[in-house]
């Protein structure tokens, strides 16, 4: 039994069939087996503008929010050891819950729309950013901290001038991974009524139209790649000592 949604979508396309002129050729989008309709793509490229911008907004805000929260949690856990297991567990739980389910769980509380989507997407990034920040901080050589303490650095100075700079590669690595998955999951934001590229995949009969799926998916993948490269550059710029060491 196929879902009602799928049937409805098929019905719409079928309508398009019958109203076609009798020139003998069907328009590209009516032939569901056709992989990619270049003409259609050229003509309709505009419709991807807004969803792409929405998608980008969702991703960026979620990453910012997720990073802010995870960073603060990591700083807390770094100072207070007993917080570590519970925080690791709770961020893990948030990661485990599938995002669609999460969207709708929040529905009664935050309603439909961008806010819900951003909260869920941010929650999804918490685990990886938190874990990577913790690992980065833990990997700071004890000898450097010992020397710093003995030289007269305060604990706060050690954190901000030594530990965090040295943890940056791990933190940015976590951000990169988080950005990849956030871009991918944001396609589901359509279910939360938050727009994004998912609207071009699931919505008004798009489901059986490969071209739009490919375009939307392709844009998402490109966006992920672009973010990844940007963050990689950020990492390179903020850690000159690693490049030197490798030389």
């Amino acid at each position, binding site marked *: 039994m196929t879902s009602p949604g799928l049937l409805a979508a098929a019905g719409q396309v079928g309508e398009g069939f019958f109203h076609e002129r009798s020139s003998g050729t069907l328009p590209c989008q009516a032939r569901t087996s056709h992989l990619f309709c270049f003409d259609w793509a050229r003509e309709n490229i505009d419709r991807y503008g807004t969803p792409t911008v929405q998608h980008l907004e969702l991703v960026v805000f979620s990453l910012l929010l997720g990073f802010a929260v995870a960073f603060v949690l990591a700083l807390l856990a770094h100072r207070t050891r007993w917080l570590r297991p519970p925080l690791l567990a709770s961020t893990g739980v948030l990661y485990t819950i599938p995002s669609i389910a999460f969207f709708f769980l929040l529905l009664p509380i935050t309603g439909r729309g961008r806010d819900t989507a951003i909260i869920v997407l941010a929650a999804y990034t918490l685990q990886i950013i938190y874990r990577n920040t913790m690992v980065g901080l833990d990997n700071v050589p004890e*000898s450097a901290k*010992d020397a710093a303490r*003995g030289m007269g650095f305060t604990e706060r100075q050690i954190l901000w001038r030594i530990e965090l700079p040295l943890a940056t590669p791990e933190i940015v690595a976590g951000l990169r991974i988080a950005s990849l998955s956030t871009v991918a999951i944001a396609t589901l934001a359509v279910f939360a009524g938050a727009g994004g590229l998912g609207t071009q995949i699931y919505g008004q009969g798009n489901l059986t139209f490969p071209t739009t799926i490919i375009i939307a998916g392709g844009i998402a993948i490109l966006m992920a790649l672009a973010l990844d490269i940007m963050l990689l550059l950020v990492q390179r710029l903020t850690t000159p000592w690693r490049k030197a060491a490798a030389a």
Partner: protein
Amino acid sequence: MPSGASGSETQSQSSSEASSVRYEEATKCYPGASEPAVDALTLEVPAGEICVLVGPSGCGKTTAMRMVNRTVDITSGDILIGGSSVREREPAQLRREIGYVIQQIGLFPHRTISENIGAVPQLLGWKKERTRERSAELLALVGLDPELGDRYPAQLSGGQQQRVGVARALAADPLVMLMDEPFGAIDPINRERLQNEFLRLQAEIRKTVLFVTHDIDEAIKMGDRIAIMREGGRVQQYATPAELLMAPANEFVEDFVGADRALKRLALMRVADINLWEAPLAYVGQATAEVRAKLAAPDVEIPYPLLVDGERRPLGWLSERDLERDVVPAQADSPLGPVLELADVMRDALADLLQHESQYAPVVDHRGRIAGVLSVEIISEFLASPQAKSDEHSAVERPHD
């Protein structure tokens, strides 16, 4: 030398002087431990001297050192630097006035060498230009190429890194230096070089240094004064190296110093420090009758004449057969054997004597002219004499090349 920026006025010393360090019944008890890690330590380190704390693992030497800059907090008692109690100071402030060098070096990987050296000046608020100048100055002082200032620690060898560690500790012109097994993680060859370099440095800057090591040889080499400790930081003997080697206070010290302590003493002196015997000299072309007359003298110490040239440079030992002729020949029957120099370390001189199985070896000065003759007998006589103790050199003047 420029003094550090004046933030706190609680230090009455001007920073280019070193300060004395005095432990007054300083005690450290860790919670839950039955015995104190350091038990009522009382010790005075005079300004400008290197005091080595040495002992077996766990004896509390590192703990005692760390109590000075309060990286280990003092449970009871006090430590005074230049007369001021360290307990009254705010720890971070205090530490910025004390140089700190640790075994694992601990350079900051993400900062350049120059920035590493300038770490404390930066904390003290020095101007950037001044910090940069100071870094370059110190790089030169520890024998490193100033170009290295822009590199990162990962690009330097272990020995170079620790030199930077020392430079970093000296940056703000501290009153006292704490060094915790600083050369322990370095390979033996570079370790010796670093030790020598540091002694050379110390000859110039004369800091008060508290040096911790578990290696008695390093202690003897580096220390003006040595404190041998047992568990609880209990000092068994606090004395100069010569005293330690000649008169160990108890069995523990004796065992710790080692059964070869007599030989260890020999490493502390040069051939020039001893009274050498004289050999009757025979010049080329001299009448052999004169030489025989010298041999017959009542106070002659060595029964063999030494052949020397016009410049009094030794050429060989003359035999009976040589003396049968009228004139001293240009070449001697017996070869010279090992020739020692006044500047030689006594231990090496003894090794040479023993290796060549020579009874006597001529000793020359830096121009090759005879100064005397050394024998194993002379050395052992000297070791037994009370004069040996009082003729001690300070650490920086001892042979360490």
